[in-house]
C-alpha cells in the first residue's frame, strides 16, 4: 500500500489520494476524483477487512469494489469533537419534563462520547416498553431528574430526537427518590430508596 505518499496531517481541503485507490472515510469527502480532507487532523488509512476463508476466484474482470479499498479518514487525536445523535445510537439522557403521552429528555452522551451541547429528545408512551404498550403510563415510568439509557429511533421533528426504551437493557439507570436519595433498582419496574425503604415505579434498565 502506498501510504508513504499520503500526508500525515491534513487541513480542510488537503488532497489525500485518488478516489480510485481509496475509499472516503469519516472526515473526508470526494471532489474531482480525489479524496479530500474536510477536517483538521491526522490522516489514517485502514486496510479493508480480509474476507474470511480463501478469496473467491475471480472469473470476471471487475473494478475493485468499495469494500476492497483502503479507507482514508481524518481524525483529530486528543481532542473531542461535537457529535450528533444518529439513528441506532445508544444515548444517556436526563428526564426534564413529563407529559401525559411523552417524556421530554435531554441527551447527555452518545455512545461513549460525552456531549458538550444538549439535544432534546422525546420518549413517547408507545416507545417506553416493548410489551403491554397500552398499559404504560409515563408518570409510572420516569421522573424528572432520572438518567435513562435509550436508543435513537428517528431524527424526529425540528426540536426533538425520538428515543425508545423498549428493550430490557434500556430504561432508567439512575434515579433519585422524593427524599433526595439515590435509589437502587429492585425489579424490572421498581426502584427503592435504601434509606427510607420507599419504592417508586420506573421503567428499569436491566443492570449490566
Amino acid at each position, binding site marked *: 500500500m502506498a501510504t508513504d505518499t499520503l500526508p500525515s496531517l491534513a*487541513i*480542510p*481541503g488537503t488532497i489525500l489520494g485518488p478516489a480510485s485507490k481509496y475509499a472516503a472515510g469519516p*472526515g473526508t*469527502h470526494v471532489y474531482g476524483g480525489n479524496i479530500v480532507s474536510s*477536517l483538521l487532523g491526522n490522516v489514517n488509512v485502514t486496510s479493508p477487512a480480509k474476507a474470511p476463508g480463501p478469496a473467491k476466484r475471480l472469473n470476471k474482470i471487475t473494478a475493485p469494489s468499495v469494500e476492497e479499498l483502503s479507507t482514508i479518514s481524518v481524525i483529530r*487525536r486528543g481532542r473531542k469533537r461535537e457529535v450528533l445523535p444518529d439513528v441506532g445510537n445508544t444515548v444517556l439522557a436526563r428526564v426534564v419534563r413529563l407529559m401525559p403521552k411523552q417524556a421530554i429528555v435531554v441527551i447527555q452522551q452518545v455512545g461513549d462520547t460525552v456531549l458538550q451541547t444538549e439535544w432534546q429528545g422525546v420518549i413517547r408512551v408507545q416507545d417506553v416498553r416493548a410489551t403491554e404498550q397500552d398499559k404504560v403510563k409515563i408518570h409510572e415510568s420516569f421522573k424528572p431528574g432520572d438518567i435513562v439509557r435509550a436508543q435513537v429511533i428517528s431524527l424526529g421533528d425540528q426540536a426533538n430526537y425520538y428515543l425508545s426504551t423498549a428493550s430490557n437493557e434500556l430504561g432508567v439507570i439512575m434515579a433519585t427518590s422524593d427524599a433526595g436519595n439515590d435509589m437502587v433498582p429492585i425489579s424490572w419496574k421498581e426502584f427503592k430508596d435504601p434509606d427510607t425503604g420507599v419504592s417508586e415505579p420506573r421503567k428499569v434498565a436491566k443492570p449490566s
Partner: protein
Amino acid sequence: MADRRRVNGPGSSTLPPVYDDGELNAASRRQRAPDAIRPLCETKPIPTICSYMSYHENLETKTLRLDLKTGVTPSASGSAYLEIEPREGEHGSGMKLTCTVHGPRSLPRSAPFSPYMVLSTHVKFAPFATKQRRGYLRDSSEKDLSTHLETALRGALIADRWPKSGVDIVVTIIEGESTRQDAVERRVEEWDVMNVLGGCITVASAAIADAGIDCVDTVSGGVAALVASKDGNDASIVLDPVALEHESVMAACCVAYLPNRDEVTNLWFKGQLPLSASYNHQSLVSRAVQASRGTHGLISASLSEAIGSTQN
C-alpha cells in the same frame, strides 16, 4: 434613550481628545511596539506560530507579519486568535481579532426544521478597537461585515453533515487598523473595512477547523487595492493595502477564496476604476486571490503546527 442595562457615564456627550500637535513621528511610535503587540497572544502553551510572509509583489517588497493560533477559548467548540502586525517602519497599528465557534448545537425551539447546519455570524468591534470609541450596539458596518462573513463561510461548510443543528461564529475585533488621526480626517476607514473583513474570514476559517466542522476547503481572505501614487497619476495594485500609505485609494476588493478548488465564495468590490487605466476588475480580483493564497499558506502552517504540538 440610554441603555439602562449598561453603565452610561455622564449624561451629556463627551469628546475624544483633540490633538493640536499632529502625529507622533514613526520612530517614537515604534518604540512601544515590540512588546506592546506581543502580549495578547500568550494564551496557550502552543508554541508561538509566526509566519513571516512576503507576498508583496509590487516593487518594494514589504513584510507583513501574521500570527495565528487556535484554542484560545477552551469552553468554545473551536476558537482562534489572529494578529497582524504593522509592517516594519510603517505607521499604524496592527489588527487583532478573536473568533469563537459554538456548536454544532441544537437549534432554538422556535426554529423550523432544517436538514442542514444553520450558520449565524456575529462581528463586533470592541469599544477600544478603533480610533473613535464604539458603542455596544451593533452598527451598520458590523452588520455588513457579518453578512459578508456568512456568505464567505457558507460556501466552504459541508452543511448537510450536521442536520437540524446550528453553529454560531463570533468574531470580536480587539484592534482594527488606522491608528492615526489622519485616518478619520481623510476618510480612509471605509477602506480599512476591507482589511478587517479579510482578517475576519481568515480567523473564522481557523476557528471552524479547530471546532472540527466539515469544510470542503480552508477558506482564506485576501485584499487588493488600486492606489494612486503620490504624484497622482501612476496607479498600481497593492496587496493587503494600508490605506494611509497611499495618496488615494481608487478601488479595493476583498475575496474569500478556496485555494484547492480555485473558487471564490465571497467577493466585495468597492470604488471606481478610472476609465483610462490599464487595470480592470479582473486584475484586481486576481491580485486579491493572490493575497488570499498567501494567507492560506499561513493558516495551513499554523493549523498543522497546532495538531502537531498536541500529538505528544
